[in-house]
């Protein structure tokens, strides 16, 4: 076996190693650029490896299984061998989101170079940033229920610490405490769900549990376990009635980490929900209609309340946080429409729109939060009414910001348009009521985002001294270019990237069989065609 076949585990372990190296090397040589460099290299490593993994999966066309400590132990169950150890199981959706996560953290790390400069505790900051990347990738790649919980906790603890990082502002401490308490409740729910599943089947491997659920059907305790999982995941995601922690936590973090929080960490919670629903429990075993009604209801609340609250905000980061709740409403709405009309044409279109929107939202909301970081550095305030002449003094940042804002509104050539259109179209095809909520959300988004655009040109307030440094301009421009590129290539991306991911998410037997044929499903480099 060559090193290249270990890429799934290296994607997770490389940033972890760099995170462990940061305190050691910082103790050796203080007041240096070591933390930045190590964080950059670590996130770049996992970006490269995640691209390799995704490429391999796309060319093989099946989920990949990596058995940790493979070789000897397997147990035979009904004449089928399966490994008793922890598995990494990566299908196309998790590989796709893996690239997204690694990319977002990489961009945020570049941006931090200018944003966190000369901070006394910057080594801690970069360590926590890398650890949050480790947590997210671990969740996306794992095929084991308890392992999911462990990595969820890594992600959660690093997020709590980074939200409280700027504790000179006391509201960061309050936000972190709120986030910690609610996050712990949701983790407890998920762990009780895992305990129930273990009590039923004595197994923690997702594919094995899925097979046993198919075989024996649902019992009352499994229904409760599913409810606990759903509650935990939606609480972690911050969907509307449970969104209060999100509104406080996302603006309080340092701006690059706000981008990561809003861009991907929230999506990882949604990924957990999708994975548990589709792969572990299975669409045929749960009551899709009632789950769908609940989810569509939550989405409708998100799409109406959050944008109305956003219109009243003066704080630019708080406004973007409300906008995140709105966008979550779109994503959840797509998933809910799929549950209400499972496996129909517009149902599949809806969930494709959702996953596409996950990617697009990660790009443009990341861009917007990074720009808010630039504004904080240049102007020194988060209050929209106190800024003036941004457009004249900071031309590059302004261009990127305007592209991001137009993208979130959904103007046609940009990426926000494509995914929003899919969700609007499919929800109208299902029912005019759901469609109406989505349209309402879009209209309100337009209203509050125009407020940001107008404030860029408004006089009367503090002026920025000039453009921010290159390390803060380049990532923002890069994100803006990606917005345009995804918008232009929307149809190709939808057909080549999103549709296969959804296909592999829905095809449950493929996910189960990969584990029972784990030797064939291992990442074998000879099977991968080079372009």
């Amino acid at each position: 076996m060559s090193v290249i076949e270990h890429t799934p585990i290296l994607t997770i372990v490389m940033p972890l190693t760099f995170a462990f190296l940061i305190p050691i090397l910082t103790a050796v040589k203080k007041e240096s650029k070591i933390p930045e460099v190590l964080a950059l290299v670590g996130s770049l490593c996992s970006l490269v490896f995640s691209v390799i993994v995704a490429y391999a999966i796309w060319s093989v066309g099946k989920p990949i299984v990596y058995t940790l400590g493979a070789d000897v132990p397997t147990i035979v169950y009904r004449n089928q061998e399966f490994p008793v150890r922890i598995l990494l199981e990566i299908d196309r959706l998790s590989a796709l989101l893996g690239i997204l996560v690694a990319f977002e953290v990489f961009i945020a790390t570049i941006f931090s170079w200018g944003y966190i400069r000369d901070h006394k505790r910057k080594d801690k900051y970069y360590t926590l940033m890398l650890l949050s990347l480790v947590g997210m990738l671990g969740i996306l790649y794992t095929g084991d229920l308890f392992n999911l919980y462990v990595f969820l906790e890594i992600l959660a603890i690093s997020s709590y610490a980074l939200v409280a990082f700027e504790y000179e502002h006391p509201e960061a401490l309050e936000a972190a405490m709120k986030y910690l308490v609610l996050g712990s409740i949701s983790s407890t729910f998920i762990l009780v769900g895992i305990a129930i599943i273990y009590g039923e089947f004595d197994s923690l491997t997702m594919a094995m549990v899925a097979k046993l659920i198919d075989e024996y059907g649902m019992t009352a305790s499994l229904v409760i376990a599913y409810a606990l999982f759903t509650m935990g995941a939606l609480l972690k995601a911050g969907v509307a009635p449970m969104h209060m922690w999100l509104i406080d936590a996302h603006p309080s973090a340092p701006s690059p980490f706000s981008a990561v929080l809003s861009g991907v960490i929230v999506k990882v919670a949604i990924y957990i929900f999708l994975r548990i629903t589709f792969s572990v429990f299975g669409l045929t075993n749960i009551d899709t209609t009632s789950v769908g009604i609940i989810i569509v209801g939550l989405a409708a609340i998100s799409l109406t309340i959050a944008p109305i609250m956003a219109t009243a905000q003066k704080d630019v980061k708080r406004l973007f946080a409300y906008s995140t709740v709105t966008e979550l409403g779109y994503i959840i709405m797509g998933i809910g429409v799929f549950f209400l009309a499972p496996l129909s044409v517009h149902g599949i279109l809806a969930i494709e729109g959702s996953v596409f929107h996950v990617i697009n939202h990660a790009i443009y909301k990341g861009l917007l939060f990074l720009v808010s970081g630039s504004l904080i550095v240049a102007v020194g305030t988060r209050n929209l009414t106190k800024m003036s002449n941004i457009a004249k003094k900071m031309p590059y940042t302004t261009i990127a910001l305007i592209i991001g804002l137009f993208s979130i509104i959904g103007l046609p050539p940009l990426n926000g348009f494509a995914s929003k259109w899919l969700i609007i179209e499919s929800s109208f095809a299902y029912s005019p009521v759901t469609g109406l909520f989505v349209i309402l959300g879009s209209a309100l988004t337009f209203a509050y985002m125009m407020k940001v655009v107008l404030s860029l040109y408004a006089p009367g307030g503090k002026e920025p001294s000039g453009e921010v440094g290159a390390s803060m301009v380049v990532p923002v421009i890069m994100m803006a270019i990606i917005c345009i590129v995804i918008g232009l290539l929307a149809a190709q991306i939808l057909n080549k990237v999103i549709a296969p991911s959804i296909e592999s998410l829905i095809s449950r037997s493929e996910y189960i069989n990969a584990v029972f044929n784990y030797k064939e499903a291992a990442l074998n480099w000879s099977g991968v065609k080079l372009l």
Partner: protein
Amino acid sequence: MKEDRRSLKIFGIVFMTILTLIMFLAFMPGIGVRPFGEISYRSVPTDDYYIEHGIEDVGAYNIVTTVVFDYRGYDTLGEATVLFTALTGAAALLLGGRRHGEE
């Protein structure tokens, strides 16, 4: 303000009662998880595997340690990372206070 708090409290009590009932339901004999101490007819013999093959696979007498470090070593790596994360976070929060100018 006071009314608001009372309604929050009532909501909390109702929510908790529902949660309690739901959780109890999951462990009721007959419909829920297997009764205490029994082996479920649905279960996979993973635990028996660990007990029977632990010594030849890993070479240690303590099967719990065997599971912790070998069969589920990846979880333990994650757990060690959790501890490291928490320490880094606590250090980031408690060091570098403005008042004392220390570190």
